[in-house]
């Protein structure tokens, strides 16, 4: 470990986890107005790894093992795991950490579970602010787990540095649907539960899709990695691929463009929540013409 890492480790030992936990609650519960008022400038940002994929792909379990690997490599790691909220009751079971804890029960690891609340893009309300808050603490890496996604929830792309898409052999049909969505977005592909039948076939299909994509950006060829719960080689390959992509980004990335995309996501998510807040206050009449209702909501936005 280098001396910077040593310094951070000492800092983290002093880290007041009670204060951090509370700071994250404050920002997660902030209204749009409060989020805007509390916005900090960008500080030294942690390297962000997004893990996404369909429900049941084994994301949480994989993250537990992966986080352990990163910790053992000397990185200070935080995990943010998002589970869906019920649109009816707003309740949620935040069950990701139960799958992580029995693997990664390690006091060095900071895990925070979030409910998606009103967000429907695979993330959670105020997630941009939550990540910005973590940037103010001495974490080297933040692993972000999205809710289980389908083909369209690729907002996470804007917020992370390295995006890992986790699929399983049963995802075969989803590959067809994902060709124009998630499948174009990831930097690293994982076929998890690769001991199940069909793993080779799905890996072939993904490689075929990626080949079509290569003319767009030939500088990074996304690896397709097979993992199983029992096998450590796959996990080591994933760990290595993430580190390689991190190194690749250091040399091949336009920081302004990254910043612009993050700001755009942040802006969009705040506007969407403002719209949701206005709609929640409205009692729409069934007979009102659509264009009138639309104009009223847009006018309401102007007053926020």
């Amino acid at each position, binding site marked *: 470990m280098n001396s910077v890492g040593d310094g951070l480790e000492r800092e983290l030992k002093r880290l*007041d*986890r*009670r204060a*951090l*936990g*509370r700071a*994250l*609650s404050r920002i997660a*519960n902030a209204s749009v107005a409060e989020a805007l008022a509390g916005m900090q400038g960008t500080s030294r940002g942690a390297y962000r790894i997004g893990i996404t994929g369909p429900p049941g792909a084994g994301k949480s379990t994989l993250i537990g093992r992966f986080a352990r690997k990163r910790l053992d490599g000397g990185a200070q790691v935080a995990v943010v795991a998002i589970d869906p*909220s*019920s649109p009816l*009751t*707003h*309740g*949620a*079971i*935040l*069950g990701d*950490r*139960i799958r992580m*804890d*029995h693997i990664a*029960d390690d*006091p060095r690891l*900071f*895990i*925070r*579970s979030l*409910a998606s609340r009103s967000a429907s893009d695979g993330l959670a309300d105020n997630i941009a602010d939550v990540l910005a808050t973590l940037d103010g603490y001495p974490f080297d890496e933040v692993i972000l787990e999205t809710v289980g996604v389908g083909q369209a929830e690729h907002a996470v792309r804007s917020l992370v540095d390295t995006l890992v898409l986790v699929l399983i052999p049963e995802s075969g049909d989803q590959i067809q649907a994902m060709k124009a969505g998630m499948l174009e977005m990831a930097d690293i592909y994982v076929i998890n539960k690769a001991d199940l039948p069909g793993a080779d076939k799905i890996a072939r299909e993904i490689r075929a899709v990626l080949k079509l994509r290569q003319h767009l950006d030939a500088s990074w060829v996304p690896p397709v990695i097979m993992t199983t719960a029992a096998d450590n080689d796959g996990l080591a390959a994933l760990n290595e691929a993430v580190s390689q992509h991190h190194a690749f980004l250091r040399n091949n990335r336009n920081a302004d463009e990254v910043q612009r995309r993050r700001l755009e996501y942040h802006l969009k998510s705040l506007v969407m929540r403002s719209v949701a807040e206005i709609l929640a206050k409205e009692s729409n009449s069934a007979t009102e013409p659509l264009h009138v209702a639309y104009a009223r909501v847009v006018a309401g936005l102007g007053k926020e």
Partner: protein
Amino acid sequence: MSNLKGKRIMIAKPGLDGHDIGAKIIALALRDAGAEVIYTGLRKTPGFIARVAVDEDVDAVGLSLLSGSHKELVAETMRELKALNASDIPVFVGGTIPAEDRAMLMDAGVVGIFTAEMRLDDVVSELARKLSPEQAA
């Protein structure tokens, strides 16, 4: 209905109990009342439970206890919370708690004791009352 909306509640099982059906039923009832429930699984130590409660900044910790060692496990969990500067996080208890131990647990500082014969609706509304006294109807 949704009187626990926005509350983050941890349901934890310290000690050596072998099953967690009761804990899961409570977790689902709290979810259906609007809470965001963090469930941590079987056989966790008080130190682990306190650490998760702090990292997750929960509004309350519920300990599900069937093993008979509730006195020790409740006291130890509260000690661990205190050590992490989190003794303000309310602790409630559920499971198999003999009537003669109730007073002792309440004296130790738990905010509620919910046993299997209680209706889920009553558990939810009493918990909501404890966590948000101002909005109690």
